[in-house]
């Protein structure tokens, strides 16, 4: 994987600023100033797309990008928690989750998870505006059937750590398990996080909630509910804007 030394939040900001500058330059009058603006736009886009910045490199900045203990310490990064009750025993849920390569079928923002060995895996996420984020993760705690915890390896584009816990309960409808996912990202703090939410139309918290909801549906109903390909009459302008059939 390519070495990165720019945080994901900064990469998104670079992409957005690069695109804005590019559009500005395209409309500007011809002249040398236009080329200065265009080349700055290209540099920003390149920095955002690759996640590598030669200036950072020269300054020795960003060397610790990817260290979860540093990037996620204290109030740094964002933390999201989601909880759901699933009608299944803890062991079977643990087993399903532990097959990490299956997670992208319900976790829609994930493209692939490749299991490298017992502890490490390679993750590819489709980010906003088509940017792909890739990182390696390792399992740092694994307690059958109650807990799986992981963190990204140093040098990753997305610095993250997370865990999933399974607590079995006796409920009126039969045995059920409370599943709690905790996730921390360093890259998506502050303004960049807001922008990310705006670009994908969904906040990381609601993305996680929908992911967990699909996981539950897949386990309990053996399929995820959908109204894809629903038949309907002609939509009004408002209906097309609301993209209800997207």
């Amino acid at each position, binding site marked *: 994987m390519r070495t990165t030394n720019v945080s994901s939040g900064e990469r998104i900001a670079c992409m957005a600023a690069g695109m804005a500058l590019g559009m500005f330059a395209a409309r500007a009058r011809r002249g040398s100033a236009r080329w200065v603006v265009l080349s700055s736009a290209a540099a920003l886009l390149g920095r955002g797309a690759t996640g590598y910045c030669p200036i950072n490199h020269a300054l020795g900045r960003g060397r610790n990008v990817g260290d979860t203990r540093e990037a996620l310490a204290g109030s740094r990064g964002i933390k999201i928690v989601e909880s759901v009750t699933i009608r299944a025993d803890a062991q079977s849920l643990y087993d399903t989750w532990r097959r990490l390569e299956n997670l992208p079928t319900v976790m829609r923002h994930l493209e692939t998870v490749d299991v490298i060995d017992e502890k490490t895996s390679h993750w590819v996420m489709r980010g906003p505006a088509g940017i792909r984020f890739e990182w390696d993760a390792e399992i740092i705690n694994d307690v059958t059937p109650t807990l799986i915890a992981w963190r990204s390896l140093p040098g990753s584009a997305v610095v993250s750590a997370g865990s999933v816990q399974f607590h079995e309960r006796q409920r009126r409808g039969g045995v059920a398990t409370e599943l709690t996912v905790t996730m921390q990202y360093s890259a998506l703090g502050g303004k960049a996080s807001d922008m990310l939410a705006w670009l994908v139309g969904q906040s990381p918290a609601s993305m996680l909630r929908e992911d967990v909801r699909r996981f539950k549906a897949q386990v309990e109903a*053996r399929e995820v509910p959908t*109204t894809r390909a629903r038949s309907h*009459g002609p939509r009004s302008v408002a209906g097309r804007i609301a993209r209800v059939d997207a």
Partner: protein
Amino acid sequence: MKALCWHGTRDVRIDRVPDPEIVNPRDAILKVTATAICGSDLHLYDGVIPSMVAGDILGHEFMGEVVEVGSEVSSLKKGDRVVVPFTIACGGCNPCHEQLWALCDNSNPNAWMAEKAYGYSGSGLFGYSHLYGGYAGGQAEYVRVPYADVGPFKVPSGLTDSQVLFLSDIFPTGYMAAENCHIQRGDVVAVWGCGPVGQFAIKSAFLLGAERVIAIDRVPERLELARTASGAETLNFDDDDVLERLRTMTGGRGPDACIDAVGLEAHGTGSLLARYDKVKTAAFMATDRLDVLRQAIHACRKGGTVSIPGVYGGFLDKVPIGAAFAKGLTFKMGQTHVHRYLAPLLALIEGGKIDPAFVVSHELPLDAAPEAYAMFLAKRDACTKVILRP
């Protein structure tokens, strides 16, 4: 295919739309043989249920013939004649296993929307707004039915469509409303609203052992039907002081249970509060009109039950919660857990205890649906229940 589509307040049309297809492995496609307009469809027609989008196919009471099944459906085969519950349930979650089918965790693909409005989401419903999943409804030639191994219920060939069609909604809905009253010997049950659900609630209350049922409405034919078909006593809220009459008719105690089979569009009794509701909803400052609910709470005896099969969607204003508290009332409400009533109610039909066809006033082709909606809303031509034939 042809389908009845919603285009705006009091604007429904027959449109040509794409045929439905199998999307998930547990789906089935039905060729609809009979479908009905529900009183709750009139709430959509009147534009008081949020999150409708022009082009949505309506209809949640339907039955038909299986024409195609998904790879995971082994309990149904092509040609089976089935009735479909209007509540969509997966059969695998805790609520489904508790027989609370209308509260299924998994069947609403737009659960996030309902969670914003209500905290948690109930099940998806056919043809009943995007808040309830955005599923295409059954007032069409064909319909896609999800979780077809759980919902569709095979019906015997000896029974006609109009005898079994109402198992999809209004018969179980009226029955659950009565069951929620925990009727005991000697009980008097008051029912507000003598539309089809009210009629089934009246019949069910007698079947469950009520000694007397008092039916309240203003439409003479409907009151007449409640008297002749079920033996209810009736009050016309245009002529009678309902609260005073209920008191004197029950030895000064009040009814043991009060059923609100009207819901959020109560016409009101000319009371000051009814006029207040009308002004406030007209000014978009409130969503629901609730004169019936107020009256039911006020009329109910101490320790009694208020059972609400009528649909509410938003916020209530001036609810006499003090009266409910002071009298120690129990409230029961919600969408019907249709699946749990299918077999027992079919047994009542087969045993001749009830013939649900008694509510039907009109049988029309699907093409006549737009006129049928207008007629049903205006209660013209003694319209109580319309069956549509695609």
